[in-house]
C-alpha cells in the first residue's frame, strides 16, 4: 500500500472514530473544560517544559467551535511568548474550521477594549477582517494611538498614505498637520524616519536625535586590548572603578577619559574618529541621566561590535558578536528605575577582521519608554 493510501486510511479511521464518539463534533467540543485546557497551554515554558500536556490541549482547543474563541482570546492574559503561539494556533484552527460560527459581536467588543491583552486583540482583528474585509479600513483608523503596536503600525501606515496624498494634492498645511500627528504616535523607526523625511521636505525639519531620545554626550576612554577577542571578558579598570579623572594603562600606553558630544545622525558615536582607528580594541563610554520619577526605561543599543551595557553597575546587555547586523534598537533591556541620577557604562569591542565592511567601531544608544517613545530627560 502506498504512503498516500495509508494516509487516507488513517484519516478515514480517525473520522469514523469521531463519528462513533457521538457524531457531533460540537457537542463533544463543548464538553471540554476550556479553562483547564488553556491552563495546560500556559504551563509551556522554555526547553520544552509542559509539552506533553500542551500537545493534548492544543489538539482539543483546535476543535472547539468558533463560538468559544473569545474565551480562548481572554486566555492570552498571563501567557508567555511560547504559550501565546500555542494558543494562537488553536484559535486560528478553530476559526478556519467553523467560519460561520465566529462570534463577530463579541470579538468586536474584545477588540475595542484596550485593557485586553494586546496579542489577543491583534488576533481578534485578524479574525474580524477575515470575516468582514470591508470593516478593515474603519478599524485601522481607530488604531493610531493603540497600545497594541501591531495595530498602531497599520494606522500609521494608513496615515502616511493619506498625508502623501495631501502633498500630491498640494495641501501642504494639511499634510504637515497629519505628519506631525503621526510622528507623535509612531513607534516603528522606519515609519518615524519616513515621516521625518516627509516633514523635512515640507519645510518642517525634525530633530530626530532628540525625538528618539539618543544620548549624545559621553566620556570615552580607550583603546584597551581586544586582540584575539580577549577584551570582551577582560575586566579593565573602567569596569571596576568609574573615575573620569583617572588615567589607566591601555593597549598602546596611557589612556584617559575624554569628553565627546556626537552630532552625527541618530546619535552615532564613531569611535574610529572620537578615539582613533584601532583593530582588536576595546573602548568604554560613560554618561548619566536623571529621572524625575520612578520610570520603566527601555535602554536600546545599536552597534556592529561586541558590547556590554551596565546601568548603575548592573550588566543589562551583553553580546560577543562582531559585524553581524547593526540597526537602531538592535539590543534592548527594559528596567524599572527609581527617581534620581543613573549611570550608564558601555563597552564596545572591535575585532581584527580586515574586510572593508568590518571596520566600523561605533554605537548608538537611546532611552525610551517600553513602546519605543524616546524619553526626554535631564542629563
Amino acid at each position, binding site marked *: 500500500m*502506498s*504512503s*498516500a493510501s*495509508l*494516509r487516507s486510511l488513517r484519516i478515514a479511521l480517525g473520522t469514523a472514530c469521531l463519528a462513533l464518539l457521538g457524531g457531533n463534533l460540537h457537542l463533544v467540543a463543548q464538553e471540554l473544560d476550556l479553562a483547564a485546557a488553556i491552563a495546560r497551554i500556559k504551563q509551556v515554558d*522554555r*526547553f*520544552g517544559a509542559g*509539552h*506533553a500536556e*500542551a*500537545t493534548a490541549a*492544543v*489538539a482539543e482547543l*483546535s476543535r472547539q467551535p468558533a463560538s468559544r474563541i473569545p474565551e480562548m482570546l481572554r486566555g492570552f492574559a498571563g501567557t508567555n*511568548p*511560547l504559550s*501565546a*503561539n*500555542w494558543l*494562537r*494556533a*488553536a484559535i*486560528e*484552527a478553530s476559526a*478556519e474550521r467553523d467560519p460561520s460560527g465566529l462570534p463577530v459581536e463579541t470579538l468586536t467588543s474584545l477588540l475595542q477594549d484596550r485593557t485586553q491583552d494586546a*496579542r489577543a486583540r491583534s488576533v481578534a482583528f*485578524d479574525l474580524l477582517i477575515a470575516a468582514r474585509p470591508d470593516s478593515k479600513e474603519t478599524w485601522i483608523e481607530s488604531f493610531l494611538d493603540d497600545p497594541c503596536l*501591531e495595530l498602531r*503600525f497599520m494606522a500609521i501606515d494608513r496615515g502616511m498614505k493619506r498625508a502623501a496624498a495631501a502633498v500630491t494634492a498640494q495641501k501642504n498645511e494639511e499634510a504637515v498637520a497629519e505628519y506631525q500627528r503621526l510622528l507623535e504616535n509612531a513607534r*516603528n*523607526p*522606519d515609519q518615524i524616519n519616513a515621516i521625518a523625511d516627509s516633514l523635512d521636505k515640507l519645510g518642517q525639519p525634525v530633530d530626530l536625535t532628540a525625538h528618539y531620545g539618543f544620548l549624545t554626550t559621553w566620556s570615552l576612554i580607550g583603546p584597551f586590548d581586544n586582540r584575539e577577542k580577549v577584551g570582551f571578558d577582560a575586566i579593565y579598570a573602567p569596569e571596576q572603578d568609574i573615575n573620569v579623572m583617572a588615567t589607566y594603562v591601555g593597549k598602546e600606553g596611557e589612556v584617559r577619559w575624554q569628553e565627546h558630544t556626537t552630532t552625527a545622525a541618530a546619535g552615532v558615536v564613531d569611535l574610529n574618529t572620537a578615539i582613533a582607528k584601532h583593530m582588536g580594541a576595546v573602548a568604554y563610554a560613560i554618561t548619566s541621566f536623571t529621572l524625575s520619577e520612578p520610570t520603566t526605561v527601555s535602554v536600546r543599543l545599536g552597534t556592529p561590535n561586541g558590547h556590554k551595557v551596565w546601568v548603575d553597575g548592573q550588566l543589562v546587555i551583553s*553580546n*560577543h*558578536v*562582531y559585524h*553581524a*547586523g*547593526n*540597526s537602531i534598537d*538592535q539590543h534592548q533591556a527594559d528596567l524599572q528605575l527609581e527617581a534620581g541620577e543613573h549611570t550608564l557604562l558601555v563597552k564596545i569591542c572591535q575585532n581584527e577582521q580586515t574586510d572593508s565592511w568590518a571596520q566600523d567601531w561605533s554605537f548608538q544608544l537611546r532611552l525610551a519608554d517600553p513602546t519605543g517613545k524616546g524619553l526626554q530627560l535631564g542629563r
Partner: protein
Amino acid sequence: MNWRSSLSFRHLAIAAVVLAAPLPFASATDWLQFRGPDFQGKAQTTALPKEWGPEKNVAWRVELPGKGPSGPIVVDGKVIVTSSGGDARQQDRAYVEAYSEATGERLWRRQFWSTGRPYSHPLSANAAPTPVSDGERVYAFFSSNDLYCLTLDGDLVWYRGLGYDHPKAANDVGMSSSPVIAGDVVVVQIENQGDSFVAGVDRLTGETRWRLARPAEANWGSPISFRTNDVDAVLVVSRTGALAVRADNGESLWTWEGAGSSISSSVVIGDRVLVPYNGLVLTDISSAPPQDVWANERMRPSNTSPIVDGDRIYMLSGNGVLAALDLATGERLWQLRMNGSFWSTPLIADGYLYAFSQAGVAQIVKLGAESGEVVAEYDLGETILASPAASDTGLYIRSDSALWKFATE
C-alpha cells in the same frame, strides 16, 4: 590546501552501505525538503514545462503575506510555504501556509509571533529556511529559531521557540539553514557567533533529544541526513570542518577538520557524499575510514548548492555561471553564462535545468553532453532568493511576493 591531507578522521563508528535517509511517509512525487529527494535537486518527472512565458504554462500565481528566501515543499497535494512579514524591519510575524497543488487555493494559514531574534539583511527575511515534511507533518523553521510542527491540515502538534530558549543563538544578518528529518528527529543547525549549536528534536513530541555545541561562527548551510547500516545519521558542515552524528543520540561518527562552505550545502549520492569543502569533494563514506574519491579546489560553490543528475554535477555560481562537472572525476565538462545573479539553487528534471535569478528571470536550460543551452526565459519581475520545488504536476517557485506554479498546458 590539500583535502586529503587535511582530513583528520578522529573516529569512525560505522562502515557500511550508505543511503539517503528515506522520509517516513514520503510519496515518490512529493518534494519534502530543501532540494528535494536526497538533496540532489532532481525531480523524478517528465511533465515539467520546457518553455514558459506570460501566456505559456503558468498554472497559477497567488499573493503571499510576506517575504521569504524559503522554498516551497510539496506533500500530499499541498504546497507548503513559509513567509515573514509584519513590521518590515523586524519581520516578526511568521506565516505557514498550505495551498492546493491543483488550484492554488489557500487551504490554511497559521500565524505566529517570532520569539527569537527575527532580524535579517534587507534582502533576506526571517522566513529563510525551507520547511521539511515527513509526509504526515510539516516542520517549519525560521531564522528566529522558532520551530513549528503542524499536521498537513494545519493543526499545531508542537512548537519550540529555540531562540527563546537560547537568546544568544542569533545572527542579525539572518540565518537560513533548512531543517532535515533523520530517523525520529528533526535536525536544526543553528550556527552563529553567539550560542552556536546543532540539535535533534523529537519529531513527534518536540522534545530535544540531543544538542551539540558548534563553532561560534556564522553559517547559512543546511545539514543533510543519510542512513548507514540501519543507523540514521546527519552531516553538518561549517567553516572549521564537518561533523557526522547519529540521529538518535547525537553521538559523533566522525569529524573532519578544515574549511567547509558556510553557505552551500552537501548532497547524498548513493554511498557517497558531495561536500562543499575547500572547493568541492566527493567522499565515500561506506568505507572505513571514509575515503575521498576526488577533490576539486577550483570548483567552489558560492551562493547556491550543487545538484546532481546521473553522472553529472551542476553548480550555479552567484554571478550566474552554470558549470557541468563529471561526477566520476570532478572535472568541469562545460560552462554556460546565465542571465543574472543567483541565490536560488536550481532544479533538474528530464534533462532540463530550471533556474531563477535574483531579479526574477526564470530560465530553462537544456542540458547536453558537451554544452547547455538556455531554451526559455521569462522575467517574472519579482525578487527571487528561494529554491524551486517540483511534483509530477508542475514546478513551484516563490518570490518575495507570490507563489507560482508552472505546468505544461
